[in-house]
């Protein structure tokens, strides 16, 4: 019982434990060092260390490290795997021993040699006696949540998207549906587990996520590195890998999806705890919202209006106006108080007191700031994502305006399709096809008097091409696509300089003021191409096809033919405007020596359905020797790069929201500190822990909702401004006139939802701390 002997006894126990711990740490470092050495000897050092450097920002680096090790191991010849087993073994033994020692050094309960207290035989306080650290049932529920969520996602996606044994839905919509189902499973099972346990059960959740949740994404990430395993199981995941590859970096997709499931599980656990923490399922929040609304008061018109002004006009002008108004207010009030004081000093004192009480508390300031922070994050997300969507939509219109949605080609030695008319008939009737036209594809050099340029030349049917591409609409005034087949109509504005008539076929001539000009077949040139060739409509250009003149004594002889510019087109895509030329199908057949056509182009009603229609067209043609490609396949790199870029931008901007969430953590923590006494009182009045959690969660949620609302309004206002007024851009540099904007409702809603969700999650920690406030603590007499 003597306190001196007690401290002495304690220090005697402490000393060997610290020695043990030091030895354990030493062993751990030696083990780790040996393992690192082994890695170096295996030749994976560089890859690993660069990956470890990446580890700092997140767990993605860990995956990279594993991949680096694997690659190093696979580079060695498979017969003698050059892994330094001895070093690895020694390192592993050191590592394990170190942990074992650390575990050993954890102090066990010591039976002190003390006289039994007066309470010796009384019953222990029952909650303490009934304390449980691990509940297998809750663990099972969490396991169902994370593993079940993953399984549901994989199976449902395969079922919905698979053409052969499923519904054959478009892959992205199938993914959205199955992700929704998986998130629901994770949320519901998590909520059930927590409600049953009446606590958060963090150990169970951690074990479930780490041991049951991670294997699938790890497997999917590593699969491409094991060709044999990929052959064995890879095809079962083909619908999954296809969706993941749509954004270019499949592993990012796997881990993001996994993270989403974990967040759903966490939200489920929290909701289960909050809803079921009072013993019965308690979903009503009336009282908690009533209290929370009085605490934060974010939905004040003045605060919201002021926040909106700041987000729309920037920080400085509204603050200046506010400062001026405040100063004027204060001056008027001081004058009034002085006047009052001359009559009755008591009135002046009362007025002064009222004036002082109007000052805001620090917590109110913090609340306003965090609302603003969330607002800024949401606004930035909405604007940037909308502008990027605008760019994507702009690019898509331009690409789809020039290219067909689906192309039918044929495997032959010269790539020709003489029976194209039959192919057109067969695919014309397919559901979803709204336009069909044949085409010939070739590469030539085009020369004018001023310049030479290499181009892609396409033979088209001017009558039907308009049903597939926007070419007829893109021809600039002064030209006409119909002149491709009516060369007589091409106006000749300026006569060519006197030159020898080389083309013996030119029998028909134009009569111009300057003399006569031969009638030549028409050609359409892109705006940039025409500019670099320095030609206008009616001018003459010569196309040279390197193959097509037959065989001469020295090999293939180029064939050349003269064309007259029938029109100049402008698509808005520099690549197309500088590299494309169109002639009529008949001219192309004879000039490029192609029988029939190269292939057939289709236009479909719904561009997102192109993949399915492409398959249907191939079926209608009985497969080989025909093949089809949809626009996504033809431009896959471009669009997956765009999607990846947008995803990354979203992630980076979400960091702004997370910074705002830090503000929310601080604000709600301050609120909790400020309201300690009130929390104690509420608990004495019979508010359960889950009720206290609900109150402070509701406060974070209100801040998030107010901020999300501000961000939504100001973001939409900015987008509207950019769209209607426009931000001018130099077309010489960017090839577009103004910043394109496209507000996608789903993506905008997602930005707000993310902000609200992050605010909700940010208030979780302070809310749980609030629930831990001991009632007695705040009830001490002042």
């Amino acid at each position, binding site marked *: 019982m003597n*306190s001196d002997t*007690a*401290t002495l006894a304690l220090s005697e126990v402490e000393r060997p434990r610290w020695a043990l711990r030091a030895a354990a740490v030493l062993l751990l470092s030696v083990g780790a060092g040996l393992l690192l050495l082994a890695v170096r000897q295996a030749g994976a050092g560089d890859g690993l260390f660069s990956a470890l450097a990446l580890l700092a920002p997140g767990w993605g680096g860990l995956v990279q490290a594993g991949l680096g090790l694997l690659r190093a191991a696979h580079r060695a010849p498979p017969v003698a795997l050059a892994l330094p087993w001895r070093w690895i073994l020694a390192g592993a033994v050191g590592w394990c021993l170190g942990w074992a020692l650390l575990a050993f050094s954890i102090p066990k309960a010591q039976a002190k040699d003390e006289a039994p*207290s*007066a*309470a010796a035989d*009384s*019953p*222990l*306080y*029952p*909650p*303490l006696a*009934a304390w449980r650290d691990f509940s297998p049932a809750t663990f099972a529920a969490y396991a169902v949540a994370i593993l079940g969520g993953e399984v549901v996602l994989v199976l449902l996606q395969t079922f919905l998207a698979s053409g052969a044994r499923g519904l054959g839905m478009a892959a992205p919509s199938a993914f959205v549906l199955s992700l929704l189902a998986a998130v629901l499973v994770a949320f519901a099972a998590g909520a059930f587990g927590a409600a049953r346990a*009446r606590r958060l059960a963090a150990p169970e959740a951690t074990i479930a996520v780490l041991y049951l949740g991670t294997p699938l994404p790890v497997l999917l990430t590593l699969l491409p590195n094991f060709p044999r395993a990929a052959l064995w199981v890879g095809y079962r995941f083909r619908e999954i890998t296809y969706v993941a590859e749509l954004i270019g970096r499949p592993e990012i997709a796997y881990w993001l999806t996994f993270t989403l499931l974990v967040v759903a599980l966490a939200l489920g656990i929290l909701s289960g705890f909050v809803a079921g*923490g*009072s*013993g019965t399922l308690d979903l*009503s929040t*009336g*009282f908690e919202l*009533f*209290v929370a609304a*009085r*605490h934060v008061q974010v939905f004040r018109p003045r605060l919201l209006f002021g926040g909106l002004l700041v987000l729309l006009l920037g920080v400085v002008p509204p603050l200046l106006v506010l400062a001026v108004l405040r100063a004027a207010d204060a001056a008027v009030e001081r004058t009034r108080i002085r006047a009052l004081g001359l009559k009755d000093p008591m009135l002046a004192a009362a007025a002064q007191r009222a004036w002082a009480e109007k000052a805001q508390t620090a917590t109110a300031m913090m609340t306003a700031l965090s609302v603003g922070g969330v607002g800024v994050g949401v606004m930035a997300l909405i604007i940037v994502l909308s502008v990027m969507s605008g760019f994507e939509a702009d690019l898509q219109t331009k690409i789809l305006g020039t290219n067909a949605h689906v192309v039918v080609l044929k495997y032959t030695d010269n790539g020709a399709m003489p029976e194209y008319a039959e192919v057109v008939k067969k695919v014309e009737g397919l559901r979803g096809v709204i336009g069909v036209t044949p085409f010939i594809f070739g590469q030539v050099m085009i020369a004018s008097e001023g310049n030479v340029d290499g181009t892609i030349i396409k033979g088209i049917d001017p009558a039907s091409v308009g049903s597939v591409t926007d070419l007829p609409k893109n021809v600039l005034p002064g030209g006409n696509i119909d002149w491709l087949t009516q060369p007589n109509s091409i106006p000749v504005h300026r006569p060519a300089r006197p030159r020898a008539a080389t083309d013996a076929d030119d029998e028909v001539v134009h009569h111009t003021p300057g003399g006569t000009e031969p009638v030549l077949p028409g050609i359409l040139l892109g705006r940039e191409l025409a500019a670099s060739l320095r030609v206008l409509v009616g001018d003459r250009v010569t196309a040279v096809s390197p193959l097509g003149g037959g065989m001469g004594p020295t090999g293939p002889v180029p064939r050349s033919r003269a064309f007259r510019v029938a029109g100049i087109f402008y698509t808005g895509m520099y690549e197309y405007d500088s590299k494309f030329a169109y002639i009529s199908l008949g001219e192309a057949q004879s000039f490029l020596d192609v029988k029939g056509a190269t292939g057939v182009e289709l236009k479909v009603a719904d561009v997102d359905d192109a993949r399915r229609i492409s398959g249907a067209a191939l079926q209608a043609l009985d497969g080989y020797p025909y093949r089809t490609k949809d626009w996504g396949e033809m431009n896959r790199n471009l669009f997956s790069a765009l999607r990846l870029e947008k995803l990354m931008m979203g992630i980076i901007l979400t960091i702004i929201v997370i910074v705002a969430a830090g503000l929310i953590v601080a604000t709600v923590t301050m609120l909790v500190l400020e309201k300690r*006494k*009130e929390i*104690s*009182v*509420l*608990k*004495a*009045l*019979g*508010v*359960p*822990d*889950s*009720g206290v959690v609900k109150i402070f969660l509701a406060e974070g949620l209100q801040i998030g909702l107010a901020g999300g609302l501000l961000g939504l309004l100001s973001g939409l206002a900015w987008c509207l401004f950019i769209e209607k007024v426009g931000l001018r851009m130099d077309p010489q540099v960017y090839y577009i006139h103004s910043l394109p904007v496209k507000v996608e409702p789903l993506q905008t809603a997602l930005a707000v939802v993310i902000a609200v969700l992050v605010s909700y999650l940010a208030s979780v920690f302070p809310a749980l701390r609030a629930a831990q406030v*001991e*009632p*007695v603590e705040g*009830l001490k*007499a*002042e």
Partner: protein
Amino acid sequence: MALVEIRDVFKSYWLHGKRIDVLSGVSLDIERGELVSLVGASGAGKSTFLHVLGTLDAPVAGSLHFDGTSVFELSDAGLARFRNRTIGFVFQSHFLLPEFTALENVAMPALVQRVDRAAALAQARALLERVGLGARLDHRPGELSGGEAQRVALARALVLQPALLLADEPTGNLDPATGEGIHQLLREVNRDLGITMVVVTHNEVLARSMPRQLRLQAGKVLRA
């Protein structure tokens, strides 16, 4: 069977590794409808005893039976419901919630119990009129005098008609005349509503006016 049966309740604090025994084996029965006063020196553990009795503080060992139920075996949520339905607290400070009006403060326990808002407010209004504050319904706690605030706190403790009212020096912060008013009110409540009451007080004169008088000394409850 007594309303409250306390058996062998122990409670200790540790300060710099030294144990301070506050309650060392308190056993006590309180009958239905009793009005009990509890006196004792400062730091004798009167408040701690009241907190343990009101399940605000966990003892080290011991049992508490209320109307036959073993209260300490309830879960946290069960304890919260028990406090809400069966116990009313009045503290030395009024501990009203500053953001709410007197009316809302009184209605709060009913709102916690998910009683309909209008019904809860009506009940609270009736009680406030009964304690003589019918004209102060919409005032915030900061706008009330000490005696008024304590009356509001008493009304809040009574709004759900608790079986047991625990008062921790309810007049400690008030002048003698106002304090006597509060005590008068407590006796009325005990007489008219039949609510069992334990009142901790420093004031020996007031304590002696109660039917049953207890003294907390050396961790035990004795008859005064």
